[in-house]
């Protein structure tokens, strides 16, 4: 029972924090959004720091690190509201390392580790909402391999990623596949998302695919749980920054001849934001520390974490805007961008209401962290 970071983890944190502070300021981010929401160059810089190999075993060219390191990196990227979908790299790395056959692993893991290949999860379907077990995509096995027919939505950098991890049904049971974006039968329609990043609708029409695993739902649930843990950690970084800029503003802004930080109603709002931030941070630790638990325990823990983080994200995002007064709703000032990022994170991998349902349906007689 120990929540300290090791020296190596602190060094990792420092490295990412420095990169964000020096190389990814708000103006660069704005420029990336203007240009479509994704910068291959910035992603390459993350690769240059070795980060794209974080979850990849050392034998496959990676760093062989685990959930706590992932959490530390995501928090720092959240602090800089970095647009490049690093969480997707962690998900893809874990899914391929953990579930793919040797041939697929040796073909893809080194390229992911080097940053040459960006592989993302393409699972969202129109009628599924947050129920990941609902899947209409279909896979058939013909003489020269698998082919997939599917429409997947809101795929992160779906018109620029190198490959997709796609759930599809095989004789009524979910399996997981890898599809290259440049394969025949793959079409995409890209767009910017509300938080300034990039996504796409991806259509597969008998597109050639490589099988990752026939135990698709098990793998997908694991991948989504990693995504949840990443979203939680990233949100903690965004919320930390949101609170920091709000404090700075309140300690500078004067009205009625005094600093607005002297008004009790606003001070209490800050206390409530701090409460939500610390509850969120606590549950982000919980989420990452439960990522390697047995599946049922992990699913339950991640649902609890996403519920708390969702509540916190909404509150901190909204109140950070509120406490800035008029400038809080402008595009020019950064706090609305923190708010929009928190909005996107709340929706990703199941929103607060969805995870409340998950917690509710998974409830046991016992209570507490160790129950």
């Amino acid at each position: 029972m120990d929540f300290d970071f090791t020296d190596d983890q602190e060094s990792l944190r420092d490295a990412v924090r420095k990169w964000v502070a020096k190389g990814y300021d708000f103006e660069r981010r704005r420029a990336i959004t203007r240009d479509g929401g994704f910068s291959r160059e910035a992603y390459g810089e993350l690769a240059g720091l070795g980060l794209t190999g974080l979850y990849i075993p050392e034998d496959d060219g990676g760093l062989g690190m685990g959930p706590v390191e992932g959490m530390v990196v995501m928090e720092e990227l959240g602090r800089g509201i970095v647009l490049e979908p690093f969480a997707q790299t962690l998900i893809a790395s874990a899914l391929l390392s953990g579930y793919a056959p040797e041939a697929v692993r040796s073909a893809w893991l080194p390229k992911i580790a080097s940053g040459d290949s960006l592989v993302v999860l393409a699972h969202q379907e129109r009628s599924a909402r947050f129920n990941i077990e609902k899947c209409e995509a279909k896979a058939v096995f013909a003489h020269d391999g698998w082919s997939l027919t599917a429409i997947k939505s809101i795929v992160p950098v779906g018109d620029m990623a190198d490959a997709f991890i796609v759930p599809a049904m095989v004789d009524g049971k979910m399996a997981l596949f890898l599809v290259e974006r440049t394969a025949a039968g793959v079409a995409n329609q890209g767009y910017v998302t509300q938080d300034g990043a990039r996504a796409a609708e991806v259509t597969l029409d008998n597109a050639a695919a490589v099988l990752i695993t026939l135990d698709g739902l098990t793998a997908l649930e694991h991948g989504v749980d990693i995504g949840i843990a990443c979203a939680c950690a990233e949100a903690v970084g965004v919320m930390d920054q949101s609170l920091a800029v709000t404090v700075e503003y309140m300690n500078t802004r004067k009205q009625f001849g005094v600093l607005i930080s002297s008004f009790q109603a606003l001070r209490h709002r800050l206390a409530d934001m701090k409460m939500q931030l610390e509850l969120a941070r606590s549950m982000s630790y919980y989420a990452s520390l439960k990522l390697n638990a047995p599946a049922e325990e992990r699913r339950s823990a991640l649902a609890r974490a996403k519920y708390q983080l969702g509540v916190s994200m909404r509150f901190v995002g909204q109140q950070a805007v509120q406490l800035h007064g008029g400038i809080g709703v402008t595009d020019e000032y950064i706090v609305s961008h923190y708010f929009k990022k928190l909005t996107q994170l709340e929706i990703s991998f199941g929103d607060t209401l969805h995870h409340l349902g998950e917690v509710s349906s998974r409830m046991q007689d016992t209570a507490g962290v160790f129950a």
Partner: protein
Amino acid sequence: MDLAFTPDEQAFREEIRDWVHANLPADISHKVHHALRLSKDDMQRWAKILGAKGWLGHGWPTEFGGPGWNAVQKHLFEEECALAGAPRVVPFGPVMVAPVIMAFGNPEQQQRFLPGIASGEVWWSQGYSEPGAGSDLASLKCKAERQGDKFIVNGQKAWTTLGQYGEWIFCLVRTSSEGKPQTGISFLLIDMKTPGVTVRPIKLLDGEVEVNEVWFDNVEVPANNLIGEENKGWTYAKYLLGHERTNIADVNRSKRELERLKRIAKAEGVYDDLRFRDEIAKLEVDVVALEMLVLRVLSAEKSGKNSLDIAGLLKIKGSEIQQRYGELMMQAAGPYSLPFIEEAMEAGWQGDFPGGEVANAPLAGTYFNLRKTTIYGGSNEVQRNIVSQVVLG
């Protein structure tokens, strides 16, 4: 970073659990598990059992007989007691006045008072708040005038928890009106059998007598009952606040009560009502989040790295959770929480409770009683003032 307790910590927990199960009287834990009335004898019996083991003062330094447990061990001890249905330890002696006597009292006072506290033989009360001094405690007026080798005490204390059982009371009294109010306060120990001390119970909204008013009418107190220096009492009182504060979150008891809530909801048929179930689910997450927060504070204390200055958050969230489970339990019983039958609050009552489920008898009273949790110990509004001050820097 690791969620699990170490093998040593696990072994310690098991040792405590075994001892508690062997030594906690079943009639007492039955009352605690069912929120039935605890008598003075019940509370003192448990205190003496702990005292005989040397565990009533379980946070005391080893030079004063404490077992020398670290923050995690103290947490595990408190948790196993709470989960087993042990009554709350009445803190005024072992947790509040004893550390002050140990830190600021002289050897004669330590010898005079500490053994009776450690054994659970002597019941202590706290004399801090007054009718005019609640959140603004420093404005207290209860006066102690030095006359030769005694103090003459005049005034009134309020909200004295279980003062009706108290044998000794430690008081913050005014010994000077010069300068800032905090600089004229002294810490005085008073024998409640002294002539001029009158205790009058205050009935709370749940019908129970949990707190009292205590009047001091020309009460003569020996000067050697003064702890430390005159006019330094505020410092000593603040010293207590600086102590380890994770048990203010009461998360151990909240886990136990959340499990009880689920049982009540099942018995009342609302556990399968999805709207009700979702409310329990929200509380479930709240309890996990609070426990994680407590564990983070304990871990920081254990390793000595970055201390987490968030005691206020523990108090705010802990009290809100207490209120919420009280509310949901009452809500589970619906209309059958309304009959107010005092006898049903006693263990072993054989009467017919309306609706047939005697477990519903204490629910409304508990809900009403728990409204105190956001008021006492520094109201949650005051706590937010303190938290925001830290955040604003």
